[in-house]
């Protein structure tokens, strides 16, 4: 049954307007960095390798654009069922509510990986004019930033990008879960997405409390730049947030009247 539900949910997510728009935007977005004429004047650096474009794409979108896209798509995945009236219709079939929501949660957890894979490929494509040979400098996702620590081979550069993008996708999962949780609470997509964004903005303001800053969900959005030694801790914290939001969503959904 869960496989049938997963198949259905994957078929649905590609039909969401927010997903189509988001993926199209992520394909175009890296071109801004690759061909921006004033990048040196504004940021004080210029690109020396195609491997640097993905880092710039990620650095400039991870704090707002990517969480926004994930939150809206997650909220829309449930919100359209509510708006179309298909939610009660499907729940009349011998499907348990936790199973049905679990299928959505799994798809929402996988979606950031697909999204960032598209983003990475689009960024690499945008970086073609700069070439992909070894270069002196950094990708921007390693510990030495764009300046680097000497010569970087293509393999090392790609490895840094892959690690950074994987961690970034991981950090976006709890945001999708949070959006689904709020959509369950408010029973509409707009309410779910807005509440998620409001929560993230509020959480970003909590950096004024240095003691809790390392534990904030918004802090984990920088996970892609986490030093190697902190990776396990960051992943554990992200997993905890994701599991908590998902569990709350299932518990609330179980008790909802339709």
């Amino acid at each position, binding site marked *: 049954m869960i496989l049938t539900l997963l198949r259905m949910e994957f078929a649905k997510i590609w039909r969401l307007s927010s997903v189509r728009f988001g993926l199209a935007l992520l394909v175009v977005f890296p071109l801004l960095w690759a061909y921006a004429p004033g990048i040196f004047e504004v940021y004080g650096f210029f690109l020396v390798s195609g491997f640097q474009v993905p880092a710039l794409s990620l650095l400039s979108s991870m704090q707002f654009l990517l969480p926004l896209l994930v939150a809206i798509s997650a909220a829309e995945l449930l919100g359209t069922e509510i708006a179309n009236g298909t939610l009660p219709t499907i729940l*009349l*079939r011998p499907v348990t509510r936790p199973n049905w929501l679990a299928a959505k949660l799994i798809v929402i957890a996988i979606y950031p990986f697909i999204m960032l894979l598209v983003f990475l490929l689009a960024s690499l494509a945008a970086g073609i004019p700069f070439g992909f040979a070894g270069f002196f400098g950094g990708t921007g996702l390693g510990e030495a930033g764009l300046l680097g620590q000497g010569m970087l081979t293509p393999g090392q550069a790609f490895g840094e990008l892959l690690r950074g993008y994987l961690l970034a996708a991981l950090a976006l999962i709890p945001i999708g879960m949070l959006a689904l949780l709020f959509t369950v609470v408010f029973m509409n997509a707009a309410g779910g997405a807005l509440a998620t964004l409001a929560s993230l903005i509020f959480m970003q303001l909590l950096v004024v409390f240095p003691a809790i800053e390392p534990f904030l969900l918004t802090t984990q959005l920088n996970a892609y730049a986490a030093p190697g030694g902190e990776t396990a801790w960051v992943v554990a914290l992200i997993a905890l947030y994701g599991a908590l939001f998902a569990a709350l969503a299932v518990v609330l959904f179980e008790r909802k009247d339709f």
Partner: protein
Amino acid sequence: MATPAIASDALTKSYGNRTVVDDFTFRVNPGEVYALVGPNGAGKTTVIRLVAGLAFPTSGQVSILGKDPHQHPAVRRELGAVVEAPAAFYPYLSGRANLRLHADLAGGVEPGRIDEVLRLMELDDAGERKVGVYSLGMRQRLGVAAAILTRPKVLMLDEPASGMDPLSLHLVHSVLRKAAGEGTAVLLSTHHLDEVVAYCTRVAILEEGVLIDEVNLFDRRERFRVRVTDTSRGLHALEAQPEAVTHATIRGGELVFIPRTNEDLGAVSSILAAAGVGVLEMNRDIFDLRAYYRERVSAERARRTGVAPATDVSGYGGQA
């Protein structure tokens, strides 16, 4: 006693201080067509959603084929329902693809059944079209097609007549009647009292979430009125013959009775004559559900508010 297909006991649903279904108890047996009627906001849709397991009762119990649908989701394999008006489907999928999706979720739908229900609901030509371009009536028919897809033992339909033209409505009626004839229990909510009289066996009248009356339409259809020389003696005589008459009462100065069979109808005159009661006129009692409904709802409102009805609602003039 056989397990009813649908049952509720003291079913109550409240939202905050507002009770939308209050202490509602009813049974629907296999092969019955049971209608819920009442004004807007009477609680009909809530009852259907509670029974279907989509909403949780504040107190009381519901069961489908003897099982609580919340605790035994598998019992929904035996349930077909349309709970949205118009019936809700994925607009970007074709009618056939929507039914395929329902079949996958329900499981055990035999090959060819989708074609069969599309044909039955006269949607075979529209099966490949996206539901987004369907008319209201087509969506409702597709809803009924999805509901009967698994050959369920229980059918529930909320406002099946909504948005339907007379031909579509006739089609849906005949499908529901056929399902009931094959032993399926049918529960529907409607505002169309003609629809109810046409093929329902029992009807529950709800007002403000309270069951104010349950009418057995089967009995009502077979009821007769007799004007006699002495109603009290006539009633006594008929009540003494339970093998010929199942029910007898006095209403509007006339004797009203239900014969056990059509043959027993002739025996009634003899019974009355033997008791020394002269028969002046005998008519089939045509039950006016519309007038009866108006009277019962108005009376209930008057009872609740203490204000007599402003308009004349004495069209029926009798009691249940």
